[in-house]
Every structure is written in structure tokens, then in C-alpha cells.
């Protein structure tokens, strides 16, 4: 059923009895051309683009829980393409361009809202780093503006300009950055993939990867064996465990990142603002809650919950950035599991095992990457060669020394 204002009116007048399921609940078939492990944003987007762009629809997406139960439904919904490295920046810009046409493309309002992403700087060194990054963006035709203190003050007058330990000196603004209603991304891709014939199989946990003569031939699942031509792993947060089923050890650690929402408020802040003197960033959802977060808790974890010290740290930074937050109440904290890679950049690549493909290592940048990740992974699966915008996200770059380290932190994932 196509969604439109007319379908809404028509169904409303008919008592909303005739809406149909947004996706089917199919039984798994014995074999698919491509089996995607992980019904999150990246897996569903991969499926959608495989069908839509590459005409491959004999595809199953296997999700052990419900679709969108992983990071696509537990992030802070930010999209941006303000990356520094020439290997990252075009990829995230591709993603941004896909975001910009996404809703009409998959006929689902995901509330893509480009209200701007502003990164504050508090020192000359940070300003210089943003100058470098902003120029890298501009060289690729991505919008970037370096604001001085007064320009920031005009935009967000209620930041702490007068009493701060680390005074705000300016900011790097990407006006095209913004937020997207995260769950709707999973649902929109799922509905779009389903309508093109792709089987989305929820409650189906992969328990083993079957290999014959060194080639992957299918997966053992909680719902039986499912054969496949190609096996595509898009199981962010659990990548190491799934890869282990094929005796593959990855350059990843899993870390918990907390996110928070406040009570609903009338419009308080328009765009996304990130603090440069501590770990804090905030935006406001269309529903009114301030959505915010900080840094990862710092230790390996598969538990989707964090600790209080980080909560306090985030609150301190939040109040330091916006003193008026003091009396705003935090409603809920939750946690997502990040595949933290060893250089802070993702992996979209084939593995050394035939038919086994990997999409992993998104650190906490996975959500914004969803469309491009799906698109490029689909390209790799369909064509067998990396998409030009994702050509550097190779698995062997660590061994070869071609690292993509935006922050320059080295092989310690909790610093990225």
C-alpha cells in the first residue's frame, strides 16, 4: 500500500480497518542468492538497494530479534558528512545525498531534518583542526562554515559564553547536517525491501556458518539451515561473535555507548550542537525530548546499558555548555553496542573466505552512514568490486598500514 495523504484520509474515514502490514512475516526459503545477517539499518538498507539498484531480490534478511532492535533504534539520530579524511568524507557525503532523497525514494516519512550540526571549538588548536576539516569538506563540495564566537552566539545565544571554564571561541557548522527519526529508517527500508520481494525474517538467530571446501554455503539458524550464494554480515554490535562462526577474528572491540532523552519540552534548541571541551552533544526531537549523549563508557561490553559515572560526566558537560539545562530533567538512558574498529573507520569488504562479506566497524558513526553503507555493500555484493566511495574500507588496511584514523588515536578502540 502506497502511503500518501490520500491513503491516510481514505483509511481514516474507513475506521483505519484496511491498513496492511508494512512487511510480511515470511517463512524462510531453503536458499537465497544473498543472505544478510542483521535486520538493522545497514542490513535492511543493503537488502533494499540490492533489489532496487541491482535487481537482486532473492534475498533474505535474518534478524535474531525484531527489526531495528539494534543500534538503528538506539542512537541519537544525527546525520552529517563533516569528515576529514579523503577516504571517509566522500562516503559520508554520498550518505547525506541519499538521506536527502530517501523519503520519497522509499515512501516513508523518516523525518529527515537538516537543521544543522554545529561543532564548538574552545581553543586555537581546535579551531585549526576544524579549519583543516572544514576545508577538506569544502574541497569535496560539502557545505561547511567556520563560525566565530559572535556568529555562534547569534545562532545559539544560550550557550555559556560568559562563565565557562573553557570559553567558546567558535564553531564548525554543517547546515545540511541534522537528524532523522531513527526507527523509521529501519521501517522504511524494511517496507521498501519487502515490497520488492525480499524476505525479512525476524526472530531468526544465526547459530553457525556452514562452509564447504572453504566456501560459505549457508547459515544454521534457530529456524533451520538456510543456504545462500553470498553471505553478508551486517551485525553491528555482534560482528565479532558472528565472524567467529567462520573462524574470522576481527579488528574490533565492542563497547557500550549511552544515549539519553529528556522530558518533552517546547522548542528549546533547533539544530545539533556538540561541545568541544567535554563529551556532550544535543539535539531536540520533533516530539520535544532533548536527545543527547557523550563518550563511550570505555570498556568492552555487550550489555546495552551503561554506568553512572558516564551519565554524570555527560551531565556536567551538558550543563557546562548550556547552563539552562540544569533544571531540565533526564528521562531515560539507554545503551548501544558499538563495533569500535582499531582505527575508528568502518569495514565494507569481502573476506578471505569465499562468499563471505563483511560490513562492520562503524564505531558510533553507523546511523548516519546507513544509506551509503547499504548502497555500497549492495554494490560490493552485486558487482564483486568495492564501490568507489567505499574503496578504502578494506579489511587488510590494518595489516598493510593504510589506516583511516580520523582522530589519530591509534590502535586503541576506546579512544576513537
Amino acid at each position, binding site marked *: 500500500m502506497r502511503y500518501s495523504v490520500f491513503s491516510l484520509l481514505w483509511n481514516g474515514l474507513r475506521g483505519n480497518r484496511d491498513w496492511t502490514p508494512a512487511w510480511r512475516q515470511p517463512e524462510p526459503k531453503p536458499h537465497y542468492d544473498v543472505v544478510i545477517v542483521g535486520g538493522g539499518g545497514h542490513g535492511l538498507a543493503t537488502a533494499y538497494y540490492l533489489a532496487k539498484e541491482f535487481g537482486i531480490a532473492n534475498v533474505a534478511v535474518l534478524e535474531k530479534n525484531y527489526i531495528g532492535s539494534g543500534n538503528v533504534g538506539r542512537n541519537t539520530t544525527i546525520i552529517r558528512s563533516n569528515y576529514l579524511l579523503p577516504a571517509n568524507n566522500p562516503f559520508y557525503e554520498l550518505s547525506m545525498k541519499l538521506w536527502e532523497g530517501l523519503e520519497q525514494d522509499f515512501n516513508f516519512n523518516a523525518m529527515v531534518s537538516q537543521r544543522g550540526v554545529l561543532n564548538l571549538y574552545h581553543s586555537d588548536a581546535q579551531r585549526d583542526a576544524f579549519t583543516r576539516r572544514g576545508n577538506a569538506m569544502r574541497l569535496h563540495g560539502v557545505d561547511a562554515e567556520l563560525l566565530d564566537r559572535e556568529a555562534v552566539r547569534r545562532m545559539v545565544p544560550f550557550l555559556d559564553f560568559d562563565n565557562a571554564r573553557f570559553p567558546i571561541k567558535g564553531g564548525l557548522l554543517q547546515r545540511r547536517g541534522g537528524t532523522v527519526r531513527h526507527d523509521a529508517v529501519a521501517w522504511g527500508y524494511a517496507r521498501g525491501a519487502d515490497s520488492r520481494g525480499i524476505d525479512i525474517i525476524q526472530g531468526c538467530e544465526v547459530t553457525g556458518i556452514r562452509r564447504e571446501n572453504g566456501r560459505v554455503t549457508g547459515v544454521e539458524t534457530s529456524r533451520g539451515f538456510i543456504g545462500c550464494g553470498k553471505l553478508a554480515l551486517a551485525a553491528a554490535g555482534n560482528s565479532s561473535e558472528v565472524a*567467529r562462526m567462520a573462524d574470522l577474528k*576481527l579488528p574490533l*572491540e565492542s563497547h557500550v555507548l549511552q544515549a539519553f532523552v529528556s522530558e518533552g519540552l517546547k522548542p528549546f534548541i533547533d539544530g545539533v550542537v556538540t561541545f568541544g571541551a567535554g563529551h556532550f552533544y544535543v539535539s531536540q526531537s520533533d516530539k520535544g525530548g532533548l536527545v543527547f549523549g557523550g563518550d563511550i*563508557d570505555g*570498556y*568492552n*561490553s555487550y550489555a546495552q546499558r551503561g554506568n553512572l559515572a558516564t551519565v554524570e560526566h555527560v551531565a556536567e558537560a551538558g550543563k557546562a555548555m548550556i547552563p539552562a539545562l540544569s533544571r531540565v530533567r533526564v528521562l531515560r538512558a539507554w545503551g548501544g553496542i558499538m563495533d569500535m574498529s*582499531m582505527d575508528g573507520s568502518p569495514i565494507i569488504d569481502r573476506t578471505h573466505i569465499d562468499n563471505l562479506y563483511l560490513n562492520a566497524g562503524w564505531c558510533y558513526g553507523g546511523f548516519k552512514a546507513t544509506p551509503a553503507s547499504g548502497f555500497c555493500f549492495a554494490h560490493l555484493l552485486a558487482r564483486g568490486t568495492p564501490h568507489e566511495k567505499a574503496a578504502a574500507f578494506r579489511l587488510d588496511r*590494518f595489516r598493510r598500514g593504510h589506516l583511516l584514523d580520523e582522530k589519530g588515536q591509534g590502535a586503541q578502540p576506546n579512544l576513537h
Partner: protein
Amino acid sequence: MASLVPCPHCGSRPKEEFTIKGAALARPAPDADPDSWFHYVYLRENPRGAYEEYWHHTAGCRRWLIVCRDTVTHQVNTSQDAAAAKGQAA
């Protein structure tokens, strides 16, 4: 864990007193092959379950610890001084 970490020297202390480094792997011998070094620096078991990590009691005794912890329950199983642990292993 995470909220409180048992330091073998100082007792239970809050996470904010510590610095976490990551997997407590044995450093290869200087002349080990490049593959061993690559594994040491870049590859991680990253299991659901028991895992050994280096934690530094930065705001306390300033000793590096090997904390064995369950990555799902966050239960700390053991916590010992890294030097002592290396001594035992040797």
C-alpha cells in the same frame, strides 16, 4: 563492574578513578613474526563473556591491573596486579 572495580591494592573503587586500555594480551617477543605482531596490535577476540582487560588505577595506586570481567553481565571475576600476573605467567 564498571561502577565499582575491585583494586587488589585499594579495594573497591569507582570507574572514574581508572583508565582503561583494552585487551590484556601478551606482547610478542621482539623477534616474533609480523603476523604475531599484527594480531597483538590489531585483532581482538572480543567475546561475549569472560574477558581480560588492562585497567590502570590512575587516581589511586597507579598500578596497572588485569581485570577479568564478563562483557555481558559486567561481573568482575578477578582483578590482579599486571606485574604480578606476568610474574605468574613467566
